[in-house]
């Protein structure tokens, strides 16, 4: 270590040290990927399956009563994706978010692994043999004591053969027929429909109507057969000239309300007054006095209603006067001649027939309390959670000597059971449904059971076989054989029906509707004293709570409030202001049934005297994800409407500031567009004349930010037609947005005329030819004449905002398809910010990973007063032709592919996040914690949730940026298929996951450079625009403007606030 060595630089020993460490580091890196893996072959190859190639099984969705057809994609024995069955008469290929999430029920990490028996207060695993023996023994004991007639079987409501099979089984043991319970159903509406139309749920012909008045009926979300209603509604609204206007009357603006052209905010329970006004039974003044709505608004509605024929009146909302309201709505339809025109009882949905009402469950609770119930069997339903706590179902259950749960998952009811005989998931078992008259929708297993479960139907047969008297009635080995024996055409008929899972006919046994349960008159609406009305509504995604342990449904923001993982109390901003409440401040809501403290969310769509809370969250015993939030049913008094449904909205509550604060877990930055023109709208009049009056505040952005532009014309009245060719039919780009056109002469590089969707696949500036030579002028694959032909395609997408309802089915489809991790569980946050822990902590730091999100913006009512308009904008990577993210990546991890995709190469990405910083659309998501890495605490797919992962899509690791790929794996799969069949890709041969699922058909995907694809035609629509067109990003996503339908004589809500 002498000084003279310094002159020669590094000494030999130092050099060797450095070299040694470097090599060691390298070899460690090298070894990292060389973990020895095993290749486990089959013992015997299963027939008809090819490893790595999906098999598709058509079956029936059982997530709600509607009975949609699904196609389960099964790869190597595991179901990885659900799609709607295009041939199914109910959902016609679409699938809602809840249907998509059935997979997270199938692979739920908290599912029961096998049968369990309660011993000394705790549940212990037993074998099926022991469990069945115990079941048979206890059943025999109950019968020998003469208790069979007092047994109660509660089944999750469903149509098909199983209910009849179950009743026959029960009758064989001397037990009464089962209760078919659906906590989320609109019982008052079902009762009224049965009374008026003779069917529980008619089909709604939206496109025949001129005016739809919804008196609290949330028909896009939770009210009836949601998917077909959404399909029909979107179709009706997409036909601009003939589109019906939708007026929503209710105390809280639900998803349907946000899609309405007009919202009339009445006090809870006063919808009936407005129905009377429409029927001509009262004056506008009387209705105004009762409902708290301006008499002029009501007068205009009544006049419009009288003028518009045919119309459609729908009721819902779950108040104590629910039956009367539904009957009044039906009477209006009858008197106006709407029945058979817009309301079609003959084509109704059978999913809501033969349903028990909550009052029957309350009666069971009373009987259990009195000790007169000998045995309780529950399958699928969760009455201990879905009934108001004040019904006392939980406490009453303790007095039943023998309680059996057939639930697949732990829940509040099974938690109290003595014996758990876990059912197969619907995707693992046989069954059927009759969703519409004359059509059988088959349910077949898509894969082998995940756990040691058994179909309840098979369990019932097995138990019957153990009883000498009953065995003779069950000669068949299992339920499938029973199903086959009754199927039209027998085994051959079943086999023939399986590929489509559809058959005509009916096997539901007696299809005569069960006598409707006698309505129990609700106790006189003893209104607890309070300063506000409490409105409890079913969560759009979690429903009555059955989806609460599915992380997708917890993480996907509520389409209306954009809240995830949290229960909030919604209040009008003016009311919150008056009470001195900011977003997140705690309030205590006290009713006669109890009190609870929740953070406040200021929501413009709440009536001023109303506080609204969503059900579905706050499960103590339903698994790890379901613990998030609170359950408002804890404070709902046990009142019922005259049909026996729970009265959710008729309670007054004392609301007071509680003095605490929680962060609001939302993915929303701002609910306003601030003139950015993200979600644009056009009125029908403007569309007809082909002009843009420039009244859309969203479209005026360029004029505001571009100093060289003439701001007055930009925001004002400049007619756009002449500049880029008339935006009438056939124009290449349609009407340019108001902003870009407001500058007079088109500026060079202006996206509206430089970029014609689909016709230009921009050439990357850094295209370096075949051999990557920097001196070459060869453009390689970016040359349209290149042998690969890649540059002749441009993958693109159109999103029709006139169709989009914001339901978020696309988001769930994307989660399922693209292995997107959920990040909001309480164990997934890093200890970064104290006080920001618990469910949704990562969301508070904007770490959600959803590649597609639904942005929801309000227009109008900035003063907090009047009606407002809503824009839903599905936002995903725009695959810009001139992408801001690409040039800033220091490692070329993101680049533009010749076929128009903006590609993210995960293995190149080093996580600088420059691309995300430079993305104007904020559609790039950074994987902060390694949500896809099993050995991390933040792992998002605990076994067996990881069985669902799509093997075609890389599971991203920590420190990698990710984003929408336009489902590149589906593009490659289609190309591979076409190559195997030695043919070119056919137009519309495949589509992305979001487009496939969309129940309003808002998304079209394809090759915009090829005229034969639908997307190329859709992009030519006169309503086409690009988001942030002025940034010259040349996006591949084309939005079609929403069409506003202002009321007759009334200014459009958006136009009303132009100053």
């Amino acid at each position, binding site marked *: *270590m002498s*000084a003279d*060595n*310094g002159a020669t*630089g*590094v*000494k030999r020993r*130092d*050099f060797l040290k*450095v*070299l040694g*460490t*470097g*090599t060691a*580091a*390298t070899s460690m*890196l*090298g070894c990292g*990927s*060389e973990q*020895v*893996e*095993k*290749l*486990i*072959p*089959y*013992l*015997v*190859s299963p027939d008809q399956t*090819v*490893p*790595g*190639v999906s098999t598709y099984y058509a079956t029936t969705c059982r997530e709600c009563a509607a009975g949609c057809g699904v196609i389960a994609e099964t790869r190597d024995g595991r179901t990885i994706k659900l799609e709607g069955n295009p041939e199914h008469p109910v959902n016609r290929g679409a699938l809602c978010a809840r249907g998509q999430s059935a997979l997270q029920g199938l692979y739920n990490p908290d599912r029961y692994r096998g049968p369990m028996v309660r011993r000394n207060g705790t549940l212990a695993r037993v074998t099926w043999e022991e469990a069945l023996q115990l079941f048979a023994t206890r059943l025999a004991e109950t019968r020998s004591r003469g208790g069979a007639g007092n047994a109660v079987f509660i089944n999750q409501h469903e149509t098909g053969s199983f209910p009849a099979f179950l009743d026959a089984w029960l009758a064989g043991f001397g037990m009464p027929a089962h209760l078919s319970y659906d906590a989320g159903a609109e019982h008052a509406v079902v009762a009224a429909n049965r009374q008026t139309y003779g069917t529980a749920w008619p089909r709604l012909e939206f496109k025949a109507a001129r005016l739809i008045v919804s008196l609290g009926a949330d028909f896009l979300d939770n009210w009836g057969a949601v998917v077909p209603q959404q399909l029909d509604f979107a179709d009706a609204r997409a036909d601009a000239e003939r589109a019906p206007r939708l007026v929503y009357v209710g105390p809280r603006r639900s998803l349907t309300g946000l899609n309405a052209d007009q919202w009339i905010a009445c006090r809870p329970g006063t919808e009936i007054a407005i129905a009377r006004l429409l029927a001509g039974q009262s004056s506008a003044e009387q209705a105004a006095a009762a409902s708290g709505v301006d008499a002029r608004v009501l007068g205009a509605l009544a006049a419009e209603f009288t003028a518009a024929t045919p119309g459609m009146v729908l009721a819902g909302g779950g108040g104590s006067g629910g039956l009367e309201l539904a009957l009044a709505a039906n009477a209006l339809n009858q008197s106006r001649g709407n029945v058979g025109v817009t309301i079609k009882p003959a084509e109704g949905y059978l999913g809501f027939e033969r349903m028990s009402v909550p009052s029957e469950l309350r009666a069971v609770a009373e009987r259990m309390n009195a000790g007169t119930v000998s045995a309780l069997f529950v399958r699928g339903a969760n009455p201990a959670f879905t009934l108001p706590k004040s019904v006392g179902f939980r406490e009453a259950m303790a007095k039943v000597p023998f309680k059996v749960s057939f639930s697949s998952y732990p829940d509040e009811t099974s938690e109290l059971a003595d014996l758990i005989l876990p059912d197969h998931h619907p995707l693992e078992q046989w069954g059927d449904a009759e969703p519409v008259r004359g059509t059988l929708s088959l349910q077949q297993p898509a894969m082998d059971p995940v756990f040691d479960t058994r179909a309840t139907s098979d369990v019932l047969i097995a138990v019957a076989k153990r009883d000498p008297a009953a065995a003779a009635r069950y000669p068949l080995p299992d339920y499938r054989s029973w199903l086959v024996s009754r199927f039209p055409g027998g085994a051959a008929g079943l086999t023939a029906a399986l590929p489509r899972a559809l058959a005509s006919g009916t096997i539901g046994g007696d299809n005569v509707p069960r006598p409707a349960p006698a309505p129990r008159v609700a106790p006189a609406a003893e209104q607890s004293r309070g300063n506000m009305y409490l409105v409890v509504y079913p969560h759009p995604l979690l429903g009555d709570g059955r989806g609460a342990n599915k992380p997708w449904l917890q993480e996907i923001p509520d389409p209306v409030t954009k809240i995830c993982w949290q229960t909030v109390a919604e209040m009008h901003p003016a009311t919150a202001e008056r009470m001195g409440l900011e977003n997140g401040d705690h309030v205590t809501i006290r009713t006669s049934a109890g009190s609870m403290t929740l953070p406040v969310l200021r929501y413009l769509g709440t009536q001023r005297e109303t506080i609204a809370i969503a059900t579905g969250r706050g499960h103590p015993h339903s698994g790890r994800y379901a613990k998030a939030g609170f359950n408002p049913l804890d404070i709902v008094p046990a009142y019922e409407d005259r049909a026996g449904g729970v009265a959710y909205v008729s309670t007054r509550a004392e609301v007071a500031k509680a003095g605490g604060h929680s962060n609001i877990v939302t993915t929303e930055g701002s609910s306003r567009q601030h003139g950015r023109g993200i979600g644009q709208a056009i009125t029908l009049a403007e569309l007809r004349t082909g002009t843009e009056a420039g009244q859309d505040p969203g479209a005026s952005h360029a004029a505001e930010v571009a100093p060289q532009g003439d701001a007055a014309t930009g925001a004002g009245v400049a007619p756009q037609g002449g500049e880029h060719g008339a935006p009438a039919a056939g124009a290449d780009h349609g009407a340019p947005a108001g902003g870009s056109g407001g500058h007079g002469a088109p500026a060079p590089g202006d996206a509206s005329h430089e970029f014609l969707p689909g016709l230009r696949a921009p050439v990357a500036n850094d295209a370096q030819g*075949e*051999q990557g030579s920097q001196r070459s002028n060869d453009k390689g*694959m970016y040359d349209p004449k290149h*042998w*690969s032909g*890649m540059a002749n395609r441009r993958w693109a997408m159109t999103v029709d905002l006139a169709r989009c309802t914001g339901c978020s089915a696309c988001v769930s489809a994307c989660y399922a398809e693209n292995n997107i991790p959920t990040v909001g569980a309480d164990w997934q946050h890093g200890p970064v910010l104290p006080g920001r822990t618990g469910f949704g902590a990562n969301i508070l730091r904007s770490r959600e990973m959803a590649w597609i999100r639904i942005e929801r913006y309000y227009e109008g009512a900035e003063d907090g007063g009047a009606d407002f308009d809503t824009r839903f904008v599905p936002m995903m990577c725009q695959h810009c032709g001139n992408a801001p993210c690409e040039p800033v990546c220091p490692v070329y991890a993101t*680049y533009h*592919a*010749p076929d128009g*995709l903006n*590609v993210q*190469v*995960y*293995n*190149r990405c080093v996580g600088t996040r420059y691309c995300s910083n430079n993305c104007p659309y904020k559609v790039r998501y950074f994987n902060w914690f390694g949500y896809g890495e099993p050995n991390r605490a933040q792992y998002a797919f605990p076994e067996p949730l990881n069985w669902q992962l799509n093997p*075609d*899509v*890389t*599971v991203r690791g920590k420190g990698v940026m990710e984003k929408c*790929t336009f489902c*590149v*794996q589906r593009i*490659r799969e289609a190309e*591979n298929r076409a*190559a*195997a069949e030695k043919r070119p890709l056919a137009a519309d041969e495949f589509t992305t996951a979001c487009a496939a699922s969309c129940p309003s058909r808002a998304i079209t995907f394809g090759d915009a450079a090829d005229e034969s694809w639908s997307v190329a035609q859709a992009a030519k629509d006169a309503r086409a625009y690009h988001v942030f067109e002025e940034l010259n990003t040349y996006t591949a996503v084309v939005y079609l403007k929403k069409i506003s339908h202002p009321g007759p004589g009334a200014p459009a809500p958006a136009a009303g606030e132009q100053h």
Partner: protein
Amino acid sequence: MNLRSGWLAVPGFISIAVLATMLSAYSGASSSEGFAPEQPVAFPHTVHVDTLKMNCLYCHFSANRSPDPGLPAVGTCMGCHTVIATGKPEIKKLAAYWNKKEAVPWVRIHKLPEYVHFPHMRHVNAGVSCQTCHGDVQKMTTVYQANSLNMGWCVDCHIGQSNPPFRARYDCASCHY
């Protein structure tokens, strides 16, 4: 160590480490080329392919119609070996697995990272022989990884360099997604 040599050591360390990493990445040193693990049953490809002239697709049955080449089920082996060469020690091992209803836990040799998608059928149907990537398996008593399977090795072929009749897209998103 004096101050000057200390200052030199830091950039020296970094640059050498970077060089070594790059050298390793592009030379194939980080690949498992040559990996020849011992298998639970010493299956001789030589006998089956070279001597008996069995087609690769007999056992790797989906290589021409799936991204996954297919791994023969134990039942496929036993289709012949319930009667053929039943006395040999390796066949006895195989039969033992079969009788226990256990799968043979083969050690995986060829493994691409999970961010790479390699559709076998596109290559097989384009006329790329199995040996192009897997080497002369028919001459291997013990199978080993004959090529580096690194990206540069893939791209050489895709751009039509190493195997002139073949060329294919070399866009990143052809394989990485």
